[in-house]
């Protein structure tokens, strides 16, 4: 029925468009005055006014119809059934009525329920038709009202412009509100966590053992929520990743900008883009199946005890993942250095590498720093690779061949399996998420500020 209603609205909008347009073209041919807007704007004006309110009505109707009918159903039940019944009791009745209408009955329903189910079927049919009729009526009324507004001097063009910009503002606010909502829920749940575990223990505690008993009779440790080992693990892995990605990415960018011939550039750039498009889960099993064993074998040759899920393997593969990120941002930064700067240096008689080292890199440094910070924030927030390749136990260590865990890994493990939303174990995930959010937000803001400041200098 929703589909029919949508078709109806589209059809009415089309009709409205043609009505408006033909009115417009009649003004254009008959009127003495100069017509303000082109006929198609008249059409668009009427069509938009017919379409959008009807669409909003449709969405509201679909959203509210269920609850409205449920309320009617409850009030139509005999008094002795609803008298003093709890909310969950009433819910059960409704459930049963709905089940009867779809034919899923267990045992024999009572006659009251059966009667109610019949009423439900009847009302739903009425509601469906009512919806179509109301929408049809609304569109016709609006069509007539807006049609009556049209005249040769009517500013349909400006009106359409206003409606379109209103639509765009609406979409933008929607995106912002969603973000605010997410942040709000994060804050709310983290707040609940900090009611159970003090902030100081969370931020400065050295022990992370979140596996606490959920039921009274379970045997488990008491649980400890000191997040320092989780943070240090995250930093260790991100640091290793940056150690791999920064030099390789930067040198790639320098090579592409300054030394590569056009042919090389046009082959290497797409390859880097492919690297950037590989799903992180693929990097993940690359880390687990190839890099981690290789690191371990290499370590055993050197006589090192390498953990099977070492920070080195996870960080190294994560580094490979962010190489294209750093190289493309550095590439942009280097390319943004005005050609005059490069020419000036070359004309002084410096070689290309002297020019790069003394002039281009210093000039592009803010942009490159911005890129590195953005990459770091990605490394810290990256989840899939570390879930697959890093450890689960929070070790407080900076040894790259040990196993460490990260914030994202802990969030995932905390929310997998038996969860209940009032245990500190589950809520800890939100606290970790909040910290992660704040850190990456700060990094991003810092990076963007640096990049912007640097742009101002040359424009």
């Amino acid at each position, binding site marked *: 029925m929703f589909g029919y209603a949508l078709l109806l609205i589209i059809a009415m909008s089309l009709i409205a468009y043609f009505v408006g347009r033909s009115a417009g073209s009649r003004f254009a041919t008959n009127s003495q005055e100069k017509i303000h807007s082109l006929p198609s704007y008249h059409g668009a004006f009427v069509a938009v006014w017919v379409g959008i309110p009807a669409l909003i009505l449709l969405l509201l109707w679909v959203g509210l119809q269920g609850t409205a009918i449920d309320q009617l159903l409850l009030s139509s039940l005999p008094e002795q059934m609803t008298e003093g019944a709890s909310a969950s009791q009433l819910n059960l009745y409704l459930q049963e009525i709905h089940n009867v209408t779809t034919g899923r009955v267990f045992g024999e329903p009572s006659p009251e329920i059966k009667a109610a189910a019949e009423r439900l079927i009847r009302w739903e049919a009425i509601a469906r038709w009512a919806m179509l009729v109301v929408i049809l009526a609304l569109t016709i009324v609006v069509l007539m009202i807006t049609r009556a507004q049209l005249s040769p001097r009517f500013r349909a063009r400006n009106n359409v412009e206003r409606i379109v910009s209103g639509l765009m503002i609406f979409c933008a606010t929607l995106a912002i509100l969603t973000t605010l909502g997410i942040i709000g829920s994060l804050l709310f749940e983290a707040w609940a966590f900090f009611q159970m575990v003090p902030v100081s223990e969370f931020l400065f505690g050295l022990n992370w053992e979140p596996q606490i008993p959920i039921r009274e009779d379970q045997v488990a440790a008491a649980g400890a929520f000191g997040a320092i080992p989780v943070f240090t693990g995250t930093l260790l892995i991100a640091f290793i990743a940056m150690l791999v990605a920064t030099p390789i990415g930067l040198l790639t960018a320098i090579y592409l900008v300054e030394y590569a011939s*056009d042919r090389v550039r046009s082959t290497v750039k797409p390859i880097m883009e492919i690297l950037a498009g590989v799903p992180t889960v693929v990097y993940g099993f690359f880390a687990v199946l190839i890099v981690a064993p290789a690191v371990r074998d290499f370590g055993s040759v050197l006589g090192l005890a390498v953990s099977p899920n070492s920070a080195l393997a996870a960080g190294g593969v994560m580094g490979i993942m962010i190489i294209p990120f750093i190289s493309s941002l550095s590439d942009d930064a280097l390319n943004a250095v*005005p050609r*005059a*700067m*490069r*020419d*000036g*240096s*070359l*004309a*002084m*008689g*410096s*070689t290309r590498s*002297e020019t790069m080292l*003394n*002039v281009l890199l*210093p*000039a592009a440094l803010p942009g490159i720093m911005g890129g590195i910070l953005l990459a770091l924030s990605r490394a810290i927030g990256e989840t899939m690779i570390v879930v697959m390749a890093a450890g689960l136990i929070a070790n407080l260590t900076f040894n790259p061949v040990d196993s460490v865990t990260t914030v994202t890994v802990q969030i995932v493990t905390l929310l997998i399996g038996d969860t209940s939303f009032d245990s500190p174990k589950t809520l800890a995930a939100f606290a970790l998420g909040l910290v992660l959010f704040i850190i990456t937000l700060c990094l991003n803001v810092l990076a963007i500020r640096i990049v912007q400041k640097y742009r101002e*200098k040359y424009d």
Partner: protein
Amino acid sequence: MSAVAVAANDKAFETVRTPDPEPRPIKIKASDVSVFYGEKQALFDVSIDIPERAVTAFIGPSGCGKSTFLRCFNRMNDTIDICRVTGEMLVSDANIYDPRLDVVELRARVGMVFQKPNPFPKSIWDNIAYGPKIHGLAKTKAEFDVIVEESLQKAGLWNEVKDRLHEPGTGLSGGQQQRLCIARAVAVSPEVILMDEPCSALDPIATAKVEELIDELRENYTIVIVTHSMQQAARVSQRTAFFHLGILVEEGPTNVLFTSPKEKRTQDYITGRFG
């Protein structure tokens, strides 16, 4: 367009030349220089002698190849991938397109100042010391200090910046930046200084200062300047060359070229009939 066709088909096109009344020694000698950007030819068999310790101005409507020709003198055209230069170019009697020649060394001898001031994003001191540093002209800080001061003196900038040598060069005004660029070029003691419309981004007062400076520099350096302003050419140069559509139409002493041009196109251009 017809001039291009003539020049391309008929190599016999002759540049009208008026010699100096008392000839000067020749610093740069270009013979039959042609420049191609990919398939497109931008310069057609240009031959010219540039006198030593004098200012030579290149004038002509925009797009006629003045900058292209100027960039041949220090092989800056090498930095443009699609650009190809043919012909012969002698600086101090040595062919600069000889494959054995070191471009880096050539550019130390033939300095360049660009249209838009382009100081490096470094301190004033570092801007000047940059060239001497890469060419190994000085070793100690004191030696560099001497070069920096001398160069800034020559560019007439010393008094304005002596108290802020360690502030960024980009913080100076446009005219000061351009004089900083001239000082930077002077710092490596070149023989020739090329200037591509050095005043087109400057206001009249800054322009006057730079013109005055060019006149002083003439004593020690051979200067080639591209300008779109005929008044400027008349003010600062001893010889002028007029380019049109990639050919060198006429060259001669500046006063002769501006007062009694021999070619119709030169006359039309300096009287403002096109350009």
